[in-house]
Structure formats: C-alpha cells, structure tokens
C-alpha cells in the first residue's frame, strides 16, 4: 500500500490587526509594528482633563512642533516591550558581573582615599542628573501623542533610573553599603559650587512645558554633551589618575549612549524634514539651550579634564548637529 502525503495549506483569514493593515497593507506584520503603531487613542474623548483644561487628552498641540503623522517617527532599534527588556537584561547581566567582580576584589576600596573622594565628588552626583532625565522622559511619554514616540521615551526614562542606580552603587561599594558616601556625594551636588550650574539646569528642565522642546534639551543637548564629556573624556582622565577600574562600572553608560543616539538622531531627522517651520523651531531651541548646557558643564571640565577636552566634545557635537541638518550656535566655550 502506498501512502500519499499531502500538505494542505491554510491561508489565515487575517494577517494582522486592522489598524496595522490600514497602515502597512495586508501582510504579516512585525511584532514592533503590531505593538507600536496606531495604538494611542486619538478620538471620542468625552471630557477635557481636569489637570489641563486648555488641551484635550492626547492633544497634539502640547508642542510647537507640527507633524501630519507623528507615527512617521519610529524607533530604528525597533524596541517594543519584549525586545527592549531582553536587550537590557543582557546589558544588565554584563554590568552586574562587573560590579560583583569589583566588589569581590575590592577594586574601589583599595584605591587611595583621595581618589575615592574624587569619584564621590565628580562622578556619583551624576545620579541626580539621571533622576532629572528620568522625570523628564516620563513627562514626555505622558504628553507625546504617538505610540512609537511614547514608548521610546518611557524606555529612555527606565534606562535613566537604572543608570542612576548604577552610579549609586559605586558609592555603596566605596562605603561598604552604609550609605554614608552617598550622603557625602549628595552634599557635593547640593553645595559644591562646581555642581550648581548643572543642578540649576536640571531643575530648569523639569519645568519645560513643551514636550518636544524637552526631548531636544534632555536627549539631544544635555546627553549629547554630558555623556561624551563625563563618560569618555572624564573616564580617560580618571584612568590617568589610577582609577581605571571604575571604567568597568560605567561601561553600561557608554554602550547605552551610543545606542540611544541612534533613535534621537532618527527622530530629529524625521521631524526636521517634515517642514521648514519645524526646522526653524528646532533651531531656536538649540540656540537657546546649547550655550546654557555648555556653560553648566564648564566647571566640571575645569575641575578635571580641562577646557580643551570640553571644546573637543563641543566640536564633535557640532558635527553631529550638522549631520542632522541643524547648525550649531557659535559659542565660545
């Protein structure tokens, strides 16, 4: 007897959700598309929110930037919740490994005490900057109007919380988890003159109302200048002082910054290309905030890497702006 094996092919009735089908056509969609596009409600709101009677819920006029379709901004990393968490779990595993290695070998506590104090004075207070960035990105995620934009910012907010914690743990490694070094480092943030311009800047960002202005300020200008200065230049400077082991504990920040530049640049490119009005608005914000950010970083550079290093960072940042089609304001650093 012969057996005939037949394959029966069954066409699925639906390849994807209707909202995804309307946007991308009737074909199997990626998880990123299904989890991100056209999921934020846009219509049929009955009441204006009590906390902001000027605007509707998910109101696109909360920013001066106008986009015909905010979903034109999407994440080049294609992070939706699952992909994001998996990716960060991997990065975290590597970071945890470095922390436990440093702890086991006492790499921080066997540094000279003056050097430990330098870490508490110049590195650990950055955790307060991270908390500011966390709050800013959370607030942007609250006000932004497309699922793709919202999710990039809320992931960014979570990342900042995590990095703030890694900085805190550097202090906890130094003080043997008593919290005493953390308090000392907070006193530097609150009272040391060299932190006050940056602290003022962070506090000023917390009250910026226009959410796109806030993302330009936080994710492009502050991060784009602070990260290369503090996690590259300052990191090298620390190594020269004999604290190269700390680099293991801040590697997460370097990897993270290289990655997050990609979506920030992609977002700005799309928004700038939408209209001349958008381009001019971005330009105005950059012209307004960039000199303040540079001025706020100056005391930190003076106390460590020197002004030349800050100039170099600013030069590289101007190149980045040029690539985005946004010309940098002339600033004497």
């Amino acid at each position, binding site marked *: 007897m012969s057996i005939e094996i037949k394959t*029966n092919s*069954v066409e699925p009735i639906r390849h994807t959700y209707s909202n995804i089908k309307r946007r991308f056509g009737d074909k199997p969609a990626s998880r990123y598309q299904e989890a991100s596009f056209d999921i934020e409600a846009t219509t049929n709101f009955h009441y204006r929110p009590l906390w902001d009677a000027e605007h509707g819920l998910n109101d696109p006029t909360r920013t001066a930037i106008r986009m015909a379709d905010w979903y034109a901004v999407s994440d080049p990393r294609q992070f939706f919740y699952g992909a994001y968490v998996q990716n960060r779990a991997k990065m975290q595993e590597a970071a945890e490994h470095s922390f436990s290695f440093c702890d086991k070998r006492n790499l921080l506590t066997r540094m000279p005490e003056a050097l430990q104090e330098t870490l508490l004075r110049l590195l650990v207070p950055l955790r307060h900057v991270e908390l500011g960035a966390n709050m800013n990105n959370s607030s942007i995620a609250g006000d932004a109007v497309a699922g793709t934009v919202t999710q990039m910012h809320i992931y960014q907010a979570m990342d900042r919380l995590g990095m703030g914690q890694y900085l805190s743990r550097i202090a906890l490694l130094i003080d043997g988890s008593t919290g005493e070094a953390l308090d000392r480092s907070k006193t530097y943030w609150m009272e040391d003159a060299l932190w006050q311009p940056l602290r003022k800047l962070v506090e000023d960002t917390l009250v910026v109302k226009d959410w796109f202005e806030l993302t330009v300020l936080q994710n492009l200008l502050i991060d784009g200048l602070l990260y290369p200065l503090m996690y590259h230049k300052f990191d090298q400077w620390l190594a020269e002082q004999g604290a190269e082991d700390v680099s293991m504990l801040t590697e997460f920040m370097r990897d993270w910054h290289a990655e997050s530049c990609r979506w920030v640049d992609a977002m700005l490119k799309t928004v700038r290309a939408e209209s001349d009005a958008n381009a001019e608005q971005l330009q105005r914000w950059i012209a307004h905030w960039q000199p303040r950010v540079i001025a706020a970083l100056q005391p930190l550079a003076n106390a460590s890497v020197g002004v030349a290093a800050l100039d170099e960072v600013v030069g590289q940042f101007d190149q980045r702006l040029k690539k985005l089609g946004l010309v940098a304001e002339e600033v004497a650093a």
Partner: protein
Amino acid sequence: MSQLAFIVFQDNDNARYLVEAIAEDNPHAEVQHHPAMIRIQAEKRLVINRATVEEKIGREWDVQEMLLDVISIGGNVDEDEDHFILEWKN
C-alpha cells in the same frame, strides 16, 4: 539545466526581516510562502548581506544567528562576517 540556490526559513518573526533583506539584495529571487516555512530560491546565486539585515532588524546582527531559523539550504556556502552566499559554482 537550471540550478537553484535556495534557503528555507521557519516562518517566524526573526525570519521575516531576513526574507525582506534577502528579497531586497536579490531582486531575481523568488519567495515562496509555505505553511510554517518560507523558501527563497534563485538561479545559481543567493546573497545575504549583514549590512542589509542590520538595517531591517534595527540592531547589530551576527550572520550565524541566522542558523537558528534555517531549515535547509542548497548551494555551496561562502560565509564570512559580512555575508553569507549560496552559490552553485559548477
């Protein structure tokens, strides 16, 4: 006689990006959707470029990751860090 270089993937979320990238790099290739698998075939030669896949998938990608989703291949393999080529050389 025609000689088809081919590669067959499981039909899953990873493979869809690969298929998209391969179809872009090999305009002469034919993509067949079967139940639970996707077969791509082309006369003589099929190229998979790391750069194209990375652009589609939005992250760094190792050519060897692909093997997790491969069911079958046909052709002589030429593989390095930047591409994976299936080709009948005779």
